[in-house]
């Protein structure tokens, strides 16, 4: 078996390789998306902390 035969998949290359490609895509998306999610969560929390600090400062300033 040589490589070009392998990639040809007996004439079904499009179907087989699209499937495997999508498989890789789904795996990668599943890995990346929680990483992005984590970043978003952390920055959200940091933002709230900052906002709370500002809010407290302002409130102290007012009273």
């Amino acid at each position, binding site marked *: 078996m040589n490589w070009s035969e392998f990639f040809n998949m007996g004439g079904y290359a499009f179907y087989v390789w699209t499937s495997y490609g999508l498989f890789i895509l789904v795996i990668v998306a599943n890995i990346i998306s929680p990483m992005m999610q984590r970043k978003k969560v952390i920055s959200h929390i940091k933002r709230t902390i900052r*906002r*709370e600090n*500002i*809010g407290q400062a*302002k*409130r102290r300033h007012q009273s």
Partner: protein
Amino acid sequence: MLEAQSLECVRDDRLLFSGLSFSVSDAEVMQIEGHNGSGKTSLLRIICGLRQPEAGQVMWQGESIKSNRESYYENMVYIGHLPCIKADLTVLENVRSLLDTRSLALANSIIETALENVGLASYEDVQGKALSSGQRRRILLAFLELAQAKLWILDEPLTALDVQGVDLMESMILDHRQAGGSVIFTTHHGMQLDCEMRSVHLGHSNYQE
């Protein structure tokens, strides 16, 4: 400035008022009085042009508001019973979209200052649905302050406001008067204003002419 000419209002089968005339000029504050259901809200909506009176008309600077709509609406702002708050927009965006209806594109910093003045500092990014009833009303106060209108028409502006909120509203009205603006408002909860105030009383009348 604003003149109501023998207005008549009928709701369902009840005649609320008829032959009601008054006028409001610059730097004047006027309270519409009357018990529950006497027609204050209806009157204010007629003055705004949101409702057609059964008879009579409303004049703005000598012209009927129907023919003069654009210039009237540029100079008038109305705040009614309803909060006009979009649940999905943040506080800042809510104020902005209210201002958009008046084509006012103000800088964020100006809006933020206004929000601070009405006690919503640090709430800029909170969504409308996460606000308490008083906080919703305070957004309207910020809008009012920024709307650059000469005539304010306020329907129970004190609803849901706490003590500081009431103070704030009062001082806003006084400042506005000082600057030559005029105010028409209703309220059931004593508004303490250190200024002359005229009032129109809506009572019971029963027949329609």
